[in-house]
């Protein structure tokens, strides 16, 4: 006679879940860390955890489609002779030529220009396609200095000194050999086909005092005409914002951990930096403490998807936002229409993030001429413009509902939080209470 144990349901570990185990197997097999594009995929407190209150007896709303609600924003009013005027408070973030195809860069420029906003170069320099199609172009000044030259500096409408990025604060760039075409190699002055590392630190300055002198040099080269932005990854937002102000920035770009990257170690993307939501109030506080809020403008990025996210970022004190991944999605990235192609790459639409391999079936994150030709820059630009306009309309809808005739009048008092964590980070009350956790503790 055999004795049977009563069957128990097979149980997987919450700690050693399928993903963790597959990552162990992958590491054991390849001997190299996982590299991918995109931003943090884990759930962290985010704008979804906030709600607007809308108007009530104490506040009256504005009529949609009738009463004016302005969306324009001016950036770089502190020192620059020629500040940037945008029709909408949503800009296109810096994404490198090299990581992105020339067609994708052109599409971003076209879309931004139709919608009345700016786009930004990236690691790898300025391409004529991008300059030509972008009414307002921000030129990044990065540690690698790939493609950096005074002529492009003068062609730019603003200059963004990149200190860090939310996906990898403290990390440099990576462009693997597969994507180093002749053109990319030439712009970066490196041999074709080798893995390129972009430095994590600027080669000729360290620390806030040097940064101030570096900014002075760039202003001298460009005759004090152009706004100088300083981009930081979200780590110590209070102190970094204060130091950027001290160093002479006109605009601060603050990028949280959900922010995208073209290629970085997974461990970096998921485990270094602060959620976007946790960055905004400390940075705004720094600006307020220095009497610089709205004088030095704040652009927030990292996980912005729709008009509600934009409105919440503005209500917390940002002047504008920037989008990366969302802009690529508007061009067609990860569209289920290409599911068969994604399956062939061993993934599925919505999860494709091996952007560093250069095999993007949509033609965005590739240098392969055949794949790249699949992206029509004119059509892509149109789609991006549509998306940007929808977001602007959504922000207006919310702002009017809260009774504001300019989107910059949105304020923290318009918001409540759904969770204790988000209430603490956004410094707004937990819904249905007057409790703002963490207030009175001070410190960052």
């Amino acid at each position, binding site marked *: 006679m055999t004795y049977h144990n009563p069957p128990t349901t097979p149980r997987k570990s919450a700690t050693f879940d399928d993903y963790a185990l597959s990552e162990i197997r992958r590491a054991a097999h390849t001997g190299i860390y996982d590299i991918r594009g995109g931003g943090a995929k884990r759930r962290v407190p985010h704008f979804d955890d906030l709600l607007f209150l809308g108007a009530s007896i104490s506040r009256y709303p504005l009529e949609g489609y009738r009463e004016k609600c302005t969306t324009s924003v001016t950036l770089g009013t502190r020192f620059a002779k020629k500040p940037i005027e945008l029709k909408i408070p949503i800009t296109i973030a810096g994404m490198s030529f090299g990581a992105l195809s020339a067609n994708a860069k052109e599409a971003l420029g076209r879309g931004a220009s139709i919608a009345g906003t700016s786009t930004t170069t990236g690691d790898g320099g300025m391409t004529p396609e991008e300059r030509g199609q972008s009414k307002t172009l921000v030129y990044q000044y990065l540690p690698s200095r790939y493609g950096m*030259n005074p002529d492009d500096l003068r062609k730019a409408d603003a200059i963004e000194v990149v200190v860090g990025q939310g996906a990898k604060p403290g990390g440099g760039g990576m462009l693997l050999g597969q994507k180093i075409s002749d053109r990319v190699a030439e712009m970066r002055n490196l041999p074709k086909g*080798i893995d390129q590392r972009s430095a994590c630190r600027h080669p*000729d300055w360290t620390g806030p005092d040097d940064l101030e002198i570096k900014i*002075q040099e760039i202003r001298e080269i460009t005759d004090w005409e152009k706004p100088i932005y300083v981009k930081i990854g979200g780590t110590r937002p209070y102190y970094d914002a204060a130091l950027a102000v001290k160093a002479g920035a006109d605009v601060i770009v603050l990028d949280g951990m959900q922010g995208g990257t073209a290629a970085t170690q997974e461990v970096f993307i998921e485990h270094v930096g602060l959620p976007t939501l946790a960055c905004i109030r400390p940075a705004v506080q720094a600006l307020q403490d220095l009497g610089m809020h709205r004088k030095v403008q704040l652009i927030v990025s990292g996980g912005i998807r729709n008009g509600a996210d934009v409105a919440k970022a503005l209500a917390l004190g940002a002047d504008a936002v920037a989008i990366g991944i969302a802009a690529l999605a508007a061009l067609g990235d990860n569209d289920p229409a290409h599911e068969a192609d994604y399956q062939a790459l061993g993934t599925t639409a919505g999860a494709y993030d091996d952007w560093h391999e250069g095999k993007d079936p949509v033609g965005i994150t590739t240098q392969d001429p055949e794949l790249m030709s699949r992206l029509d820059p004119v059509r892509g630009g149109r789609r991006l413009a549509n998306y940007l306009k929808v977001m602007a309309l959504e922000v207006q809808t919310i702002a009017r509902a809260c009774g504001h005739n300019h989107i910059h009048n949105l304020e923290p008092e318009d918001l409540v939080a759904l969770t204790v964590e988000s209430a603490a980070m956004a410094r707004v009350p937990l819904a249905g209470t007057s409790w703002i956790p963490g207030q009175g503790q001070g410190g960052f």
Partner: protein
Amino acid sequence: MNDGETLMRKVDLSVTPLRDLNQDLHRQSSGANEKNWEVLNPMGFHAIAVGVDAPIEIDIRGSVGYYCAGMNKQATITVHGSAGPGVAENMMSGKVRITGDASQYAGATGRGGLLVIDGNAASRCGVSMKGIDIVVKGNIGHMSAFMAQSGHLVVLGDAGDALGDSIYEAKLFVRGSVKSLGADCIEKEMRPEHHDELGKLLETAGVSDVKTSEFKRYGSARKLYSFNIDNADAY
């Protein structure tokens, strides 16, 4: 004034704001007749003569702060004194000479032109250089030519620690001792073409009293060009 004779512009930085000097220099074009400039009392100011793009000559009488001659194109700029960090950073073309010493990051990310330092250069000389030629008559500090991509770095004296760390295709020639080589940087054979190359560089830098046979050549072993886990210890 005779044909062909050019005007000499004197700018005294104890009187004229730096911003005015740089803007005046930016107004010079290839056809400009103010070909000779003399800058007095630089007093260690930062960003003197940056972003110049004209075949003019600028003599700076005294020592300068950070980023002097930054992004220079075409101009011949001489600092009669010493230079602070980042002299001739990202230079595109032209010639910059420092009669004294240069601080850190001299010629950083430079893309073209010639930088001559009569004295010593501190650490990170030629960091991330992308085509510039640098000739240092004295010694250079540690981590020089870090991630150097292309161009030449010639040192008549000694080099400090970790020379050429993570170097790409730049060529390094050192006459004196090298304290240590950085990751992926190795000594390479001096072939006839290297003697030619070096000879020409020395000549344009105005160095006539040394022989190319006194130099050793260093460059990339090209082992770290593609990531390989077995090389992880090298980083």
